[in-house]
């Protein structure tokens, strides 16, 4: 029987992973809303976040706050470049073509990362000294608090951009009706590039925050990205609130599965529950029904 402090430990672990999944799920949703596709390069934008942080720290010798900021900015720029150089030249609006294009670009991105940073696993230091904090018998790494704090901050900034700025209004316009957006003068191509930049930014932040806990390699984003994708589906693909709820729920499910049974089965259990939810509610927790 796990004690209260054990449960607390698992709760924090679940929330931390959940926050990372939520960020990645948000990236999937932003692109899905403006283009109607699943962007598989999202998983590599997560890896890139960690890679850029590593290079900013050890190649450029930047202090941690600047390095983190730089990593997020560079990931956002990478996202924008993927759209501008990889997606837009296809001049296609066939969703299937575009989705396959993102799969291909994802493979290319992983190849580029393998060339640039090598195949070895690397270690990135946490944001601040890793002296654990004790809280009601549970042991917390400061990085966990940073993840929760910065994820919350990123979500608030995104909410502000979408709700309060003219750019956010244009993005919601394109998501709501692309044809109408063009007729009032909104440049859909630019908005799609911005949505890829945001996907890169949140993905990169997720990668930069989580790789100090895991390790860093050119394909670290693949499993994380898959979980983020699952979280987005769980929340009802496209809904931002759903993406956050889905991420946290998936993280908690995994963690509690590991606590109750065995950590070897945590993914099986988490994805099993995901399937069950979708059997009962195919549109996800907060998704809208079509029509």
């Amino acid at each position, binding site marked *: 029987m796990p004690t209260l402090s054990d449960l607390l430990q698992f709760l924090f672990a679940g929330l931390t992973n959940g926050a990372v999944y939520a960020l990645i799920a948000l990236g999937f949703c932003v692109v899905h809303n403006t283009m109607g596709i699943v962007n598989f390069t999202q998983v590599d934008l997560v890896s890139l976040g960690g890679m850029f942080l590593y290079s900013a720290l050890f190649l450029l010798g930047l202090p941690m706050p600047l390095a983190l900021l730089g990593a997020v900015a560079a990931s956002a720029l990478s996202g924008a470049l993927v759209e501008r150089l990889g997606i837009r030249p296809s001049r296609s609006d066939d969703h299937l073509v575009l989705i396959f294009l993102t799969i291909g670009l994802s493979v290319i991105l992983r190849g580029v990362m393998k060339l640039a940073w090598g195949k070895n696993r690397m270690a990135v230091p946490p944001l601040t000294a890793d002296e654990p904090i004790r809280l009601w018998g549970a042991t917390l790494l400061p990085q966990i608090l940073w993840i929760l704090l910065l994820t919350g901050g990123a979500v608030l900034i995104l909410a502000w951009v979408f709700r309060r700025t003219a750019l956010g209004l244009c993005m919601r316009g394109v998501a709501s009706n692309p044809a109408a957006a063009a007729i*009032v*003068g909104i440049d859909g191509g630019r908005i799609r590039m911005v949505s890829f930049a945001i996907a890169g930014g949140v993905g990169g932040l997720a990668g930069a925050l989580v790789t100090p806990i895991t390790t860093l390699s050119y394909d670290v984003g693949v499993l994380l990205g898959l979980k983020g994708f699952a979280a987005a589906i769980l929340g009802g693909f496209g809904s931002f609130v759903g993406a956050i709820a889905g991420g946290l729920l998936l993280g908690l499910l995994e963690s509690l599965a590991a606590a109750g049974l065995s950590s070897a089965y945590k993914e099986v259990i988490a994805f099993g529950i995901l399937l069950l939810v979708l059997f009962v509610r195919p549109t996800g927790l907060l998704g809208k029904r079509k029509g």
Partner: protein
Amino acid sequence: MLRIEGIGKHFGGVPALSDVTFRCREGWTTALIGPNGAGKSTLINCISGILAPDTGQIHLQGLRLDGLPAHRRPFLGVGRTFQNLALFPRLTVLENVLCGLTPQGEPSMLRSLLRLPATRHRERLLRLKALEMLDAFGLTDKSQWPVSILSYGDRKRVELARALVSEPRLLLLDEPVAGLNAEETARIGTEIRRLHGAGLTILLVEHDMDLVMSVSDHIVVLDSGRAIASGTPGQIRSDPRVIEAYLGRMSATA
């Protein structure tokens, strides 16, 4: 003002428009009429950039429109409404009208995010302008409603408000009173006459003959993708070709 020169458009070998040529004079309300399938909506889609014509040219005040992407044309003063509406259903009434102001306040990403005082000032002005437009259309009470819950008549008014708030030089109206009741139709008619009085150039596609005859300065008749006649309402009413192609067919099907 607007010059349509030799416009042709085919859909998979089927001609929808062939060699259509006419002009809309500045400050006039020009009506485009014709039976269903005559190519009226296709032509309006070519002018607003949703479709690209296969042949011919479209000039607005000497500037060539064809070839420009649709989203550039509002910047040159082209505004339009749709037969079946093209609103942002998930956005509120106010947000829909604010989107119509894109040509006035195109947000650059950086400027939008940095919130410089000048940007904020301009955004406040645009918001004020949108609210004034809502007031003029009697939509103030519903400004925070999502468009998806509005009545059809209200949606038509939101779409017109969104087109007008950008102060277009040329307004394209695609069947503005289709699906509206008599009272709402009369209201739109009054609105078109008011805009005409204010000097706006309007191209109107409409089946409602009473409305067309009462608001138009000039009428162009399309049949099977060709412009078969043009003239004043009086001339069109008595043109035998028009009666044969359009009115005759209508009474035959009635």
